[in-house]
Each structure stands twice: as C-alpha cells, then as structure tokens.
C-alpha cells in the first residue's frame, strides 16, 4: 500500500493555489492530492489559450493562467478543484495518457456516485452543454470527459514535466453564471456539498491507488516557494501572454 499526502485547503488566493501546484510539480515531493477552493472567485485560463478568446475574463473577479492546458474554468464557491501530483512512473500515471485519464475519471465517477450523482464518461454522446466561442472548458468535451444528464460536469487537464505529472480536475457542484448550461449537482438531484464530494474523492482515490491518504499541511518552506512562484500567475505579462 502506497502513501499519499492530502492537502485540504480552504479557499485560497488564486496565485497561491497555482504556486503550490507548480511547486509540487517541480520538486521531488511525495505523491500529493490537493483539494481546494478559490477566493475571490477566479477565472483560470488554459496554458495556451488566447486571453481575447475568452469573453468571460471581463466578468470574473480575478483571472489567472494555469500551467495545465485546456479551456477556461470559473472557480467560485460552487466548484471544487483537485490536483494530483506525483512521478509519471507511479500509479495512476504509469500507463498511457488516455489510460491515466480513464483511471482517474473512473475514481471520480465512483466518488460522484457516492454523493448521489449518476455520472459517466461522455463517450460518443451529444451534450447539451456544448457552446461555441466561449473558450470555456465546460463548453467543450472529449469522449473521456465526465458528464451527467448530457452535460459536462468535470474538467480535467495534465501538465507533464521532467518525469512528473500535475493533474488538475474541476468538479461543478453548483452552476456558475459564467458557464451557462453545464452540469451541477442540483440537476442530478443531489444536495451534496463540496466537502462531501471531497471526502468521497479521497476514498475513491484510496481504492484506485491502493493507497492511504494522510492529511498534512504544506511546510513553511513549501508555502514560501509557492508564494514566490504564485506571483507570476497573476502578473499581466503571464495572464495575457497570448
């Protein structure tokens, strides 16, 4: 049985959130799962997105750019972000990239079922949450994305660097006005909270990875590094680099 660290954060400053994930990716830190929220509400752009291609940037309190790819996400009180960071040769990433998604998404679907949300992979289904020209992650999809009631409900993206993986996931608990038409727990008839789905995620990852997750806090050194790295995520030249 392997051991993972579990960092559960309250709603954190967006720069610190991104700095922590990058610091964990860049180090040889033990496998770590972060579960976190954001304050204030923040729109995160995918690494390669053009700022001008995402109209919602004008409506969010803050805008950051992630180092993971994909589309933009609105992180507000109705959203739970998770970040898995470990070496690429360790489970669940000791396989092809598509298979690693299938593994992680299998666990997420199991966690959602535990809180009353009957989710599945999109496969070839047509979705009611698709929108054009918004640049939003939840308005576009691939067959491996997680959906319920024909709406995308989980966003997912990986960054691979120097033999390590950062896997970002975003779960829509409540609807956001910046992501019209996407899934929420309410449309599935679930009243579960972010905390409840977070706990279910930990249990599902423990089963997937045959691992024990131990709650921990980032060390002062890690926090200092995260603050230093985090500053650039809010800097105009990075946020508007494209």
């Amino acid at each position, binding site marked *: 049985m392997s051991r993972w660290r579990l960092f559960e954060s309250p709603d954190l400053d967006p720069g610190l959130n991104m700095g922590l994930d990058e610091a964990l990716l860049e180090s040889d830190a033990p496998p770590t799962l972060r579960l976190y929220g954001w304050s204030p509400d923040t729109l995160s752009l995918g*690494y*390669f997105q053009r700022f001008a291609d995402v109209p919602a940037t004008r409506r969010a309190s803050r805008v950051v750019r992630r*180092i*993971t*790819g*994909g589309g933009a996400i609105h992180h507000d009180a109705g959203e739970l972000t998770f970040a898995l960071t470990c070496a690429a040769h360790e489970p669940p990433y*000791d396989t*092809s*990239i*598509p298979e690693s*998604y299938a593994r992680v998404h299998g666990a997420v679907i199991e966690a959602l079922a535990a809180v009353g949300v009957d989710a599945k992979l999109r496969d070839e289904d047509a979705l009611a949450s698709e929108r054009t020209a918004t640049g939003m992650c939840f308005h576009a999809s*691939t067959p*491996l994305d997680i959906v319920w009631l024909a709406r995308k409900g989980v966003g*997912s*993206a*990986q*960054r*691979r*660097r*120097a*033999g390590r993986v950062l896997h970002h996931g975003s779960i829509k608990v409540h609807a956001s006005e910046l992501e019209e038409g996407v899934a929420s727990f309410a449309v599935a008839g679930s009243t579960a909270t972010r905390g409840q789905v977070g706990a279910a995620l930990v249990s599902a990852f423990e089963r997937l990875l045959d691992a024990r997750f131990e709650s921990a806090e980032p060390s002062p050194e890690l926090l200092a590094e995260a603050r230093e790295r985090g500053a650039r995520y809010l800097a105009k030249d990075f946020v508007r680099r494209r």
Partner: protein
Amino acid sequence: MRPDDRRYLPSHEWAKLDDETVLVGITDFAVKELSSGNEGDLVYCDMPEVGRLVAQGETFGEIESVKAVADLNCPVAGEIIEINAEIEEHLEVLSQDPWRKGWLIRVKPESTSLDHLLDAEAYEALLEKSEH
C-alpha cells in the same frame, strides 16, 4: 523498429546528425501518447527563438494536446539556428511524418557526438518496458 539513423531521449525526443548540425523532433510514440492517434488532438506548439542557447536536456518548447501540456527537451547542447515554422500552423505534420517533415528545431551543437543518447534498440526496449 524506429529509425536507427538517429538517437533518442527517454522523454521521446529524437536527434539526428545532419552535416555539422543536429535536427531534433519527437517520436511517433510521443505523438500517439499526446494525440490518442487523432491528429486533430494536437492543438498548440510553442517554439523557441532562433539564436537561443540550450543546455543538454533543457526545455526548448512546449506542446499541447487536448489532454496534456508537455515540455520539449533538447537532446544536445548548442545554439538553435533554425525552427520548423510550418509546425506551429500545421501540427498534423507531426502525426503524418514525425521522422522527416516533423522535425522541430535545428541545433548547432557544442559536440556532434550523440553517444549520450539511446540508440534505436535501447529506445525500443524502453518503450516495451513502459508498455508492460
């Protein structure tokens, strides 16, 4: 069997001597990993500036597919003297011909020795190991 006229990094970049320069690209395995066999899944590639000096193993660019952003690492130290400008606009070339038309950068190397890299047989063995 992958081409034996070049050498490989475990991170799936290849390096091929071309006169006194070295051409660098990514392997068919890397392309397949990133694109799941669907050439439309590759979406962006950031290339470096010509004239940049790179160390062996240093990241010189980044590539994004629908599902992952990955670094592009340089197998040799030297100066980047040319980039394949076609790639940024036509990423499908990487799927269609990763070994020739899909080269990414041309480097004027500090040394023309590629002995520090994997040969085709060792690279194949690495892939075989990772697939089992």
